[in-house]
Structure formats: C-alpha cells, structure tokens
C-alpha cells in the first residue's frame, strides 16, 4: 500500500492510492456552540437533492444529538469499536509542537481504518475497515428527536411544559454533519470500479452514476457513513457538495462561487464553507487572511471530526464548551483543550472572523479587519475582557468586496407590508 502524508495525524499512513491533491479543497467549519438543532440545513439539502422516490431515508445533511444520536444509528460507536478491536488500547496520540502546521495535533500512534484493514480483513483485496449498516439503522435521521413529542394519548399537540419528563444531570449537543469530502476518502479507496472520484478543481468527492454498480463497498467503508445506497436505482449516492453552487454555475450564483444549500440555510449562523489552497504535499498552504485557514491553523479553534479514522476529513468543528473533555478528545482529537480555551476568551480577530458566519451566501476567499473603537472594558467570568467595534470585510475570488460587517450586530427592520418580498 502506498504511503501518503496525513497532516491531521502528523505522519505518513498507508492508503490504497498514490497521493493526488486538488488545487483548492472544499472545506467547512461548524460552530457546535451555536447549533440549536433546528434541522433547517437538513431540510434544505433534502428539498434540493434527496426528495425523490427511493431516497426517503437518505439524508446527506443531518443534525444528530450527541452522545446518543446518530445517522445511521451508532455509526461512530461502531467504527470506534472496530478500531479498538483491531488495535486494543493503542489508539493514542503523542503530543507535539502545535505551531508546526504539518502536525498541529501531535502524532497519532494508533491505526487508521486503512491500516486496521490490513490486520483485520480478508481477503487481501479488502481495503478499509468498516461495516454495512442495517436498513433499520438508516430509518431515523435523529432518533427520539425526529418527531415532535406530546403527552401520551393526546394527538396533534405539543407538550408545552415538558416538566413531567424525568430529569437527569446529563449533557448533549447537536452535531451537524455532511460528507467531509476527505483528502483520503475511504469511499474512493474501497470502490472496486473506481466509480467514486475526487474532483481536481475543488476536491469534492462524487459518485459516477454511470460507473456505479451498487456493490456498496463505499457505504461499508466510509467511517462517517455518508455514502448511501438507493434501492430503486441500485446504485450509491452521496453529498455532492452542491458543486454547481461552489463552481458558480448555478443560475442563482451569477458566476460567483456560492456556499452550499445547507450552509446558506443555517439560521443559527453556525456554518462557514470555502475552498482552501493546498501545498504539493496536501497540507494547507499558508493563506493568513482566509477565514477557514485562520480558524483551523491560526486560532486553532476548529478541529477535524474523528481525525483518528485517517481519511483527513475537511469538516472542522468548534467543539462545544460544556461537554466532558474525554468525550471531546475522542471526537475531535488532542486540540480540544486549547480550542475551547481560545474560543471562551476570543481576541479581536477571532471575534471579527466569527462575525463573517452567514452574512452572505457567497464563498469568502479573504478577509480584512479595520480596527474600531473600544466599546467595553471589564470582566467576563472573572477574566479581563475587552470589546472593540471593529469592521471586517469579506472578499470574493477576484478580490471584489462581498460585504462588510461590524462587531455590532446589525438588525434589519422589515417594512410592515410585503414583509416577505424579495
């Protein structure tokens, strides 16, 4: 098996194909601290791509309530268990120099889904450690939360109080997910027909519908379970990264790269998507004023989802602040503590970049800050805290200004008549 470099693991790893990287890579950051689980993203995707016969249980974008929720059910627990069986108690990290962009999270000492396959699977042609979810595991997009709850015996009515429900000292958070359009996709590695491919222009991973014969090797292999089988066409489908919008060929985009449907629909303002420049070795090229580069490599508040799987996912998450750290370490890797500390006490630049979320549906390629006056000086949770009313300006692919916004939150007041007119 050829060796490729995985910067999220800080080391070389085995992958069935030689390394090949796109010019720019589709990537996104989700802020889990803001997600309210409204499922608007889920429905935006559903109504765009998966509304047809045979796609009833297919949700390319979903929001699941962690720790118990999952689509398909228990997907992450099952993969983690398989890896644990393959490499008992050795899925560990060695800390390193966080300032090194080639290994910002240290070095992963365990086995990836590709490396574990060599040990666990037979025949030799099996390339990725995974499992095929059962039909019933795909039925619930977010089990126990996908129907409104009401009192027993009363139909068609919400439970308006909820106070009679049992109360536990528990925690939960909403984890929004789409395909991670991984740098080393497990679906690409597993497909015996080479029907799954990664676009050279933006790294979006697609299934060639002409070539696919529905073997479901990709469904079995993807550790995030984001390739799905469609029974009535007998081929597999997956998130297409809304590529007509990303490449600017969607009529609404007017030639300018536009964020995906799930990003644009997010009312909680948790999402930002873009395309990042890559070096020849697949690491992120320094692009200091790109908002995603800033969040992942400068502020380091956004972390990959289950980096230990080894696919180098391009979805990054600002971890929830209130969740027990061992759980977060397992889910987002060793960068969690520093990320939360930084996010809890954001500096001027981080606050400004956070204001870029969902001000526009155009893809941001660069931002610039203009410093404003200090508007608050005091303490927050016992620590010194300062607020500045800075301005942050977003630019498109050709250097054109997309929008500018300030730390002060704009409130748009609609006319009393024709409120929904566009």
């Amino acid at each position, binding site marked *: 098996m050829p060796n490729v470099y995985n910067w999220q693991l800080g080391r070389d790893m085995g992958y069935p194909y030689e390394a090949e990287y796109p010019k720019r890579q589709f990537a996104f950051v989700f802020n889990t601290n803001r997600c309210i689980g409204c499922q608007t993203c889920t429905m935006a995707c559903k109504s765009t791509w998966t509304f047809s016969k045979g796609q009833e249980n297919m949700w390319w974008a979903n929001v699941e309530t962690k720790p118990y929720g999952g689509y398909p059910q228990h997907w992450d627990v099952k993969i983690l268990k398989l890896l644990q069986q393959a490499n008992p108690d050795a899925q560990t990290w060695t800390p390193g120099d966080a300032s090194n962009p080639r290994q910002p999270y240290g070095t992963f000492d365990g086995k990836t889904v590709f490396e574990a396959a060599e040990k666990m699977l037979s025949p030799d042609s099996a390339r990725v450690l995974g499992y095929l979810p059962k039909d019933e595991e795909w039925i619930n997009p977010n089990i126990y939360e996908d129907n409104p709850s009401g009192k027993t015996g009363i139909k068609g009515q919400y439970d308006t109080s909820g106070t009679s429900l049992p109360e*536990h000292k528990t925690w939960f958070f909403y984890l929004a997910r789409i395909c991670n359009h991984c740098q080393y996709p497990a679906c690409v590695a597993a497909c015996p027909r080479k029907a799954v491919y990664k676009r050279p222009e933006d790294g979006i991973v697609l299934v060639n519908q002409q070539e696919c014969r529905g073997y479901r090797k990709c469904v079995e292999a993807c550790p995030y379970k984001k390739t799905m089988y469609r029974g009535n066409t007998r081929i597999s489908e997956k998130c297409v990264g809304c590529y007509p919008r990303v490449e600017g060929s969607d009529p609404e985009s007017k030639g300018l790269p536009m964020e995906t449907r799930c990003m644009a629909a997010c009312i909680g303002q948790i999402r930002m998507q873009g395309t990042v420049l890559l070096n020849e070795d697949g690491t992120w090229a320094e692009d200091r004023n790109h908002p995603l580069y800033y969040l992942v490599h400068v502020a380091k508040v956004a972390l990959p989802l289950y980096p230990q799987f080894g696919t180098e996912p391009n979805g990054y998450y600002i971890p*929830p602040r209130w969740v027990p750290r061992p759980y977060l370490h397992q889910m987002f890797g060793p960068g969690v503590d520093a990320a939360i500390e930084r996010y809890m006490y954001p500096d001027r630049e981080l606050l400004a970049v956070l204001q870029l979320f969902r001000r526009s549906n155009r893809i941001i390629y660069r931002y610039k800050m203009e410093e404003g006056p200090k508007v*608050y000086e005091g303490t927050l949770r016992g620590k010194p805290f300062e607020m500045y009313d800075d301005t942050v300006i977003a630019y498109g692919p050709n250097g054109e200004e997309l929008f500018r916004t300030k730390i002060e939150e704009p409130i748009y007041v609609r006319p009393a008549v024709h409120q929904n007119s566009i």
Partner: protein
Amino acid sequence: MPYNDPEPEDPMALNGVAFEATPDAALEAAYTFAEELARLGQPENSILYLFQSPQYQGPYSAFQALGIDTVTQVIKECCTAIASCRAALRDCHLAPGKDPGCETAAPWRCEGPQSH
C-alpha cells in the same frame, strides 16, 4: 420515533442511558448559550425566554439545573460584556432616528432605508 419498543436484551438499543455531566457542565452550557445569543444581538429578556422554553432543550436543561437567579445573572453578565455595542438598525423603512418599536440588546442607531 422507533416503531417498536426497545428490546431490553439488545445492547445497541437506547434504553435510558444517562451520560453523567461534569459538575460545572450546566453553568458552562448556560454561559455558552447566553454568550452566543448576546453576540447575535438578542436582548436579555429574549435570552431568558429561550432558557425558560422547554422547546429549546439545551438552554432549558441548564435553566432547570441552575434556577432563575443564576441564569439571570449569567445572561446579565454576558449581555453587559458582549452586547455592549450598539445595535444598528439597517434596511429600516423608517426615517433615521425614529423609534421602530423593537427591542434590541443595546441602544440602537437607526440608519434608515438602505439598498443592499
């Protein structure tokens, strides 16, 4: 909801599993929600309403654990620090300076009608 009742013998079926939180989880969650909503420009009473609504399960569970006094104090602290900027009323159909009759997190500044 699932079509059948959970089978007690099925180790993968969710059947009343409680993941215990750390002692300060509820307070941390309350600060997170209050800070995020303050950054979004919500006024104190709107944030408190959200904490009190069982439809918003995260804030509501924090509210149940902490009680109204603590939650009110958390919201006030966050709004004082974060929502200290003025809220700018943009794309407003009213003339600049006229009261639009809406609540904002901080003193507002009406910029009047704008095209965007």
